[in-house]
């Protein structure tokens, strides 16, 4: 704007200057011309009177003054010329001013020299004897004058130009200054130019709108971040070139990458399933897939995003289904195990029964077989009872009666029950501790400790010992069951609490048991909000620790 104002003011002043010079020159020149004309007319008047009086003799001794004087007779023949010899001049009858004078009494003409630098002004008067008197004067033309004055004119022009330049600059600056000083943050407070007021008002309105919209957008952004940031599901937004536009922290966690993340989504994961899902989604179809990645299992759902029926990107949600999948696997294993465990004794029973059905069995054998059938049936019953127990604990469907129980008395009773079994293998059972009361379910606690002690005896060595230690601390009760048995290899330690899990895969009947013992212990402990811990050294022995916390604690009365 500054430039524009400067340019236009400068140009205006400059043009006006040139026009003024031209006009002044024109007027002055016209004025001079008229003056010369009058001078010539006057001189012609005097001379004609003199010639009328004295005739051609007047020119004898005529001294030339500034102007050229010529006398021509009516035929055009030159009788006298002040500048040249009359005889040498040709006939003047065809000259414009002569012709005019012959016709009207006076005539004038202007003739330019070939270079246009000079012009001759002629004035002719018809005398009474029909001869013509002509007076001419030579004068410089406008161009010559202009050329002659070129230097001063140029100097004037340059000076004027510089002045204009400076002034224009100052003026345009002065005009622009208030506009530059406008406070655009609060446009309505300005008092610069009246003409700008509507514009400024509009600006103020728009400022307000923009502010509101920005606030709105910011709020939405915060909301969006809150939602995606707190999602446990991974969230990714990609464009149609599979570049990541947005992601949430959960997505990064699931794939174990550190921010910043940008560029291609394949940089996150390039497994085949992942790639296929993305390319399907970008082709416009909803895609879902399960991705296995380093022991983890993700469910990936990709939805294409459409705009005007064209895919412009995709939204990808990633769910961590590792836990679910693990539970599913456990459940499947459990079912398989149950069926297997149930089938083994049943097959034996069926086999023995079939043999007896054939009838070709001696009396003694029948007794033997019946004993075996009985044994297997007992096994089945134990198994089913265990399964029922664990399902009860699982489903929590049956409400158990909680009561105050003395752990010492309870364990004493259990140890009595197991004494016979222990004596067979010459194993010493020690009960260490004092009377300690906790709140719990007698049936479950009985089950738990029975199983623990039973295991400690079963998996012990000949002449081993089993210690049952009860310790009451300030606000918890801990029970240790320690044996000097065969121990559990490190590899299996984390899994022995699983249902039907056995260190000895052969499911050997030698030791017996259903494989549910420790599972019942674990679930019983969970029921009582107690912690279970297992420490074992292979060949040395195993210690199972159960710590009852605040929930089961009964203080000293």
């Amino acid at each position, binding site marked *: 704007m500054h430039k524009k104002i400067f340019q236009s003011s400068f140009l205006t002043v400059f043009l006006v200057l040139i026009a003024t010079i031209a006009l002044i020159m024109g007027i002055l020149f016209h004025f001079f011309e008229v003056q010369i004309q009058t001078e010539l007319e006057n001189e012609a008047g005097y001379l004609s009177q003199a010639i009328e009086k004295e005739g051609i003799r007047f020119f004898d001794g005529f001294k030339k003054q500034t102007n050229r004087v010529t006398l021509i007779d009516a035929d055009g023949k030159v009788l006298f010329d002040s500048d040249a010899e009359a005889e040498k001049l040709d006939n003047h009858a065809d000259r414009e001013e002569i012709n005019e004078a012959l016709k009207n009494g006076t005539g004038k003409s202007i003739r330019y020299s070939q270079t246009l630098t000079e012009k001759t002004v002629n004035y002719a008067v018809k005398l009474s004897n029909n001869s013509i008197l002509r007076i001419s004067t030579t004068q410089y033309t406008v161009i010559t004058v202009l050329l002659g004055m070129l230097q001063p004119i140029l100097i004037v022009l340059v000076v004027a130009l510089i002045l204009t330049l400076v002034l224009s600059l100052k003026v345009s600056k002065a005009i622009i200054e208030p506009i530059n000083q406008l406070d655009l943050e609060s446009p309505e407070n300005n008092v610069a130019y009246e003409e700008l007021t509507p514009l400024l008002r509009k600006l103020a309105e728009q400022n307000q709108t923009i502010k509101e919209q920005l606030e709105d957008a910011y709020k939405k952004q915060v909301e969006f971040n809150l939602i995606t940031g707190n999602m446990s599901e991974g969230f990714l937004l990609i464009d149609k*070139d599979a*570049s990541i536009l947005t992601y949430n922290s959960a997505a990064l966690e699931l794939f174990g990458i550190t921010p910043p993340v940008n*560029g*291609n989504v*394949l*940089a996150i994961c*390039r497994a*085949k399933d992942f*790639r296929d899902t993305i390319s399907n989604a970008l082709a416009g179809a909803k895609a879902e897939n399960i991705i296995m990645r380093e022991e983890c299992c993700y469910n990936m759902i990709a939805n294409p995003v459409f705009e005007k029926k064209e895919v412009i990107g995709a939204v990808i949600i990633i769910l961590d289904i590792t836990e679910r999948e693990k539970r599913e696997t456990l459940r499947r294993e459990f079912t398989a195990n149950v069926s297997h465990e149930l089938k083994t004794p049943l097959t034996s029973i069926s086999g023995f029964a079939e043999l007896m059905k054939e009838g070709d069995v001696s009396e003694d054998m029948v007794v033997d077989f019946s004993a075996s059938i009985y044994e297997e049936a007992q096994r089945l019953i134990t198994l089913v009872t265990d399964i029922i127990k664990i399902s009860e604990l699982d489903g929590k469907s049956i409400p158990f009666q909680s009561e105050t129980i003395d752990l010492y008395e309870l364990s004493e009773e259990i140890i009595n029950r197991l004494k016979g079994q222990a004596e067979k293998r010459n194993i010493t059972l020690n009960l260490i501790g004092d009377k300690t009361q906790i709140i719990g379910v007698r049936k479950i606690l009985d089950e738990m400790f029975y199983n623990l002690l039973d295991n400690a005896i079963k998996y012990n060595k000949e002449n081993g010992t089993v210690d049952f230690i009860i310790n009451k601390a300030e606000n918890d009760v801990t029970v240790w069951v320690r044996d000097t048995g065969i121990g559990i290899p490190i590899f299996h330690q984390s899994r022995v609490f699983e249902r039907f899990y056995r260190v000895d895969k052969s499911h050997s009947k030698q030791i017996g048991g259903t494989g549910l013992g420790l599972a019942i212990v674990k679930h019983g402990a969970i029921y009582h909000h107690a912690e279970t811990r297992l420490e074992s050294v292979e060949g040395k022995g195993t210690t199972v620790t159960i710590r009852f916390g605040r929930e089961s604690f009964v203080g000293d009365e």
Partner: protein
Amino acid sequence: MRNKFDRQLSQLNTELITMGALCEEAIINAVKYLTDSDEHSRDACLAADSQIDEKERDIEIFCIKLLLQQQPVAGDLRVVSAALKMISDMERIGDQASDIVEIAPYVVKSGIEGSTHIRDMADATIKMVSESVESFVKMDMDIAYQVMEHDNLVDELFDKVKDELIKSIAENGRNAEALIDLLMIAKYFERIGDHAENIAEWVVYSITGKHKNPSCYQEQDMRR
């Protein structure tokens, strides 16, 4: 114009990642077939190989189109030329994986248990391939240098496997053919390792503009 070029470069990147992932798939499945003789892995490996071949052609054409139409300079030119070199290494990895799959049945049929070393070699090679792809995806020089170092391990393992096989043949010539096949498989692993190393080198090149880690270069010379 630049915008379009950027998009094309990102497309090239996507294609290269995909091709790298295919290489990983090919070698993983080849090893799986070798150990479990699972027909499904065999098919997966061969499918991956043919996809790799296809990708190589596509990427090659794409790169040349980029060079001609966009005339990239400096970093962009490095990226495109490194891509051109990388795809041929990747293609070789795919071919060698499918070669392993072709030989594997003879080895499996003969019932020789490969030594632990060849299994280590397989694992190390898989690791090298995925790390080289990883270094490309993340444009991470550290991982690239790791791959280069890893190659020495694979080379050592190859020597061990070779010695073992020589010993077995000397002791018991009956299974000689299968043992030789096993040696070839070991050699393929070693070659795949070299190609993975090359990929890592091209990654370093496309980042720094310098090809080959100088120390690595000397070692290679000595080995030759």
